[in-house]
């Protein structure tokens, strides 16, 4: 008897304009101790399956057909009370979005302890101890101090780990982990995956691991199910699916995985289902100002920039404990260059991005653009600077205004800068939506109607709408499946190569960094430990931390090479 069985599951979202079927007749089963990978295009319905199992489909979504069984008993029709007895206790789910999954008004400790107390018969002290152990276990340093902080004080990756810790509170039988490691750096990712494997091995926990990181699939899972547009297209053991993919979509997916060992000119793409996966650079050129770049000139200059956050509040300044998130980081980005920023989660990458974008004041040092200072200006961030930069935020959930329609969101920057109006703007929005693979009709929806990856693509579309000269990408593809990722990255690369776009590129995905960036900076605990040309850095890392980082890159030997030859 399988631990969890999904048969013929169909999930529908009746919306005003159409009935949208997010999942069609999906099959899936998980045995005790098995790690079952679920991959697929972003928006394929992976998270929806998870939500359906938990009985937490977003309104107006509903299970239109099929059966879900837990240990042989049907749970798809259970009432809330009965369902609640299962949730968290027997079946846990790690939601895809770590930022909004945590209640902003409670400390991490409060949230952990209440969950522990809810499920386990323990005293307060034991619960506290367990909370601390869990936080330790998911690799958050300085657990004691961190426990009493609020979610907004954590970096993206740390929040994700908190969410994982929360799911593990109650020793569940089944864990549905929805992209548990997207925001994590390789070392932490390895640690988390090890933890999951350990749970499966020792406690016979069944895991559904939703991810688009083929490296993770290859390393961790026993079986894999591939989804495409709501349907299961392929299922089998990991070796089988990755090694000899049978379905064309799976093939294209595997081909699109960036390999750490080779640097290709472009990300390999495979067209599937008659869709144009590539688009001509002429399309972009049409309305993108071509900037003549001079690689020897630096465009962005970060001069010993520092950011401190208050950690312990006190009336008297001397009692206040400050936390230095970024410590005197100095680097520059040349015109037309892609500058990569890597480092473990919480090392201050997003903070640097925000300081450069002018969203945070710097507590020391200075940021200048084109030789002119832009940080801590008396009148705020200068307008001319704002016109030239854009940013893709790490968290696609909270960076979109929930009350605005997607087409308005994308059109806003361009309209604001007076670049386009009326029909031209409409066309641009439609085109961008198309480019990022959502289709123009998506413009009529609201952000909450999209999957994580889809939202990220909306973010990207918005950033590109103004045709910025400088683009800050904070984990731009963390939530994207490899095929969409390849497509997006190709666009960015084209923009850089042909149109002179300069980028700050933050990512955990070292293979991607290797493909994308010209130079890379390595950040550790807020300090920039090494900056160098990508190739030389990857080939010959100097700093011990860099060496350690690179050694943890996943090996993708199992993957079929079929796609590569096509590219």
């Amino acid at each position, binding site marked *: 008897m399988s631990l969890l069985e999904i048969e013929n599951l169909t999930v529908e979202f009746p919306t005003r304009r159409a009935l949208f079927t997010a999942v069609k007749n999906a099959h899936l089963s998980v045995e005790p101790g098995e790690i079952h990978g679920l991959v697929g295009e972003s928006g394929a319905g992976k998270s929806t399956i998870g939500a359906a199992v938990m009985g937490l489909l977003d309104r107006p979504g509903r299970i239109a057909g099929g059966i879900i069984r837990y240990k042989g008993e049907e749970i798809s029709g259970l009432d809330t009370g009965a369902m609640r*007895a299962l949730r968290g206790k027997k079946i846990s789910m790690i939601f895809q979005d770590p930022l909004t999954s945590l209640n902003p008004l409670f400390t991490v400790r409060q949230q952990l302890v209440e969950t522990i107390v809810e499920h386990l018969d323990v005293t307060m002290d034991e619960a506290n101890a367990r909370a601390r152990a869990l936080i330790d276990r998911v690799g958050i340093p300085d657990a004691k101090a961190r426990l009493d902080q609020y979610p907004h004080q954590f970096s993206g990756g740390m929040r994700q780990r908190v969410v994982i810790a929360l799911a593990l509170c*109650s020793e569940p039988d089944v864990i549905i982990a929805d992209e548990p490691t997207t925001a994590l750096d390789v070392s932490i990712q390895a640690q988390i995956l090890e933890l999951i494997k350990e749970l499966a091995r020792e406690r016979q926990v069944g895991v559904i691991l939703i991810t688009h990181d083929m490296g993770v699939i290859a390393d961790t899972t026993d079986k894999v199910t591939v989804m495409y547009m709501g349907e299961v297209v392929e299922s089998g053991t990991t070796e089988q699916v990755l090694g000899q993919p049978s379905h064309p979509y799976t093939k294209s997916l595997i081909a699109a995985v960036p390999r750490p060992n080779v640097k290709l000119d472009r990300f390999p793409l495979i067209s599937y289902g008659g869709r144009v996966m590539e688009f001509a650079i002429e399309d972009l050129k049409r309305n993108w100002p071509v900037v003549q770049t001079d690689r020897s000139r630096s465009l962005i200059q970060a001069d010993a920039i520092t950011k401190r956050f208050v950690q312990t509040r006190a009336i008297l300044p001397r009692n206040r404990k400050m936390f230095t998130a970024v410590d005197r980081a100095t680097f520059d980005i040349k015109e037309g260059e892609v500058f990569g920023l890597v480092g473990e989660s919480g090392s201050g990458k997003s903070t640097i991005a925000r300081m450069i974008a002018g969203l945070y004041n710097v507590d020391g040092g200075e940021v200048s653009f084109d030789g002119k200072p832009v940080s801590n200006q008396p009148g705020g961030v200068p307008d001319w600077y704002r016109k030239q930069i854009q940013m893709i935020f790490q968290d696609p959930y909270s960076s979109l205004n929930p009350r605005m329609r997607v087409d308005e969101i994308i059109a806003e920057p361009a309209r604001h800068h007076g670049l386009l109006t009326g029909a031209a703007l409409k066309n641009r929005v439609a085109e961008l939506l198309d480019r990022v693979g959502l289709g123009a009709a998506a413009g009529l929806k609201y952000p909450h109607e999209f999957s994580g990856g889809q939202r990220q693509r909306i973010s990207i579309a918005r950033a590109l709408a103004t045709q910025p000269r400088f683009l800050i990408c904070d984990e731009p593809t963390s939530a994207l499946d490899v095929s969409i990722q390849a497509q997006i990255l190709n666009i960015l690369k084209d923009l850089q190569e042909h149109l002179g776009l300069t980028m700050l590129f933050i990512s955990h995905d070292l293979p991607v960094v290797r493909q994308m960036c010209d130079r890379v900076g390595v950040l550790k605990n807020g300090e920039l430990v090494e900056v160098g040309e990508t190739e030389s850095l990857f080939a010959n890392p100097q700093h011990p931390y860099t060496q350690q980082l690179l050694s943890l890159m996943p090996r993708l030997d199992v993957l079929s090479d079929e796609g590569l030859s096509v590219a």
Partner: protein
Amino acid sequence: MLSFILKRIAQSLLVLLVVGLVAFAMFRFVGDPVDTMLGQERTVEDIERLREVLGLNKPFFLQYWDFLVRAVQGDFGISYRQGRPVAEIILERLPATLELALVSGVIALSLGIVLGIFTAIRRDGFWANFIMSASLIGVSLPTFLIGVLLIYAFGVGLDIRIPFTDVTFNTGGMPIFGRGDTREVFGWVGGWNSGLATWDGLQSIVLPAITLGLYQMTLIMRLVRAEMLEVLRADYIRFARARGLSTRAINFRHALKNTMVPVITVTGLQLGAIIAFAIITETVFQWPGVGLLFINAIQFVDIPVMAAYLMLISVMFVGINLIVDLLYVAIDPRLRVDGKTT
């Protein structure tokens, strides 16, 4: 935080100055006290003389200045109507109003929150809709009318016959006016006479407290519901469900706390309004609080009472709003000063 409070206190002093100034500009339009102070047989001389004595001939900013100079020394003048020191009268009346405000505030807040949550959770249920609609009666009828209706229903009483029997009973019996027996509970200017300490006093407070709290209850209920509906859709609530937390913990802990910012804002304001302007309720129930005092002062153009009262209200609102602002920070850690943005 301490510096924040100190800064606010400094600002409040400024607020008080302006309140006084506006108040004195207003008093010219409230009427002329001499008419009500002098009898029918007054002569023009009498009027002039009294105006002179009261300093009403002076330009208003001079009157204001005089008031300030005395107020700084803790002297708010003598009531025109009662001839007693204003500070004394107000302090004597304050316990009644504070107790009424407390009870109706508690009723409004507890019922408002519970019903708000209920109507949000059962968004489309019959009872939720019923409560939502019925609560509107409380806000669409004048307070006066509600008070009088309550008095007649539960004070005078209606004879109601239990169906199919000859037994009739009267719904009345509740005290109609005043505070009932009071007992001095602790030292205050002239003793804090509490009605909450006696059975009679407790009975007396029921009807006025309901009358006064009805509007606030409806407002709080509707606000909680509106905010809850929004919050219940949030991802962290979904995740809290996924963690298997009990419904109670989700609704009352996680969701409720996230609805609190607008709710405490309004609660603070309404609490202030209850204390400050319980005029109508206090008049209907002849409740001897500051509201009644104030309406009498307006009728009688008792300028010293009005001025001191407005100062008191001002201090109170400033205090309440300070607390509300502090509560914001206590509730929502994101509002704490760190992570400052440009």
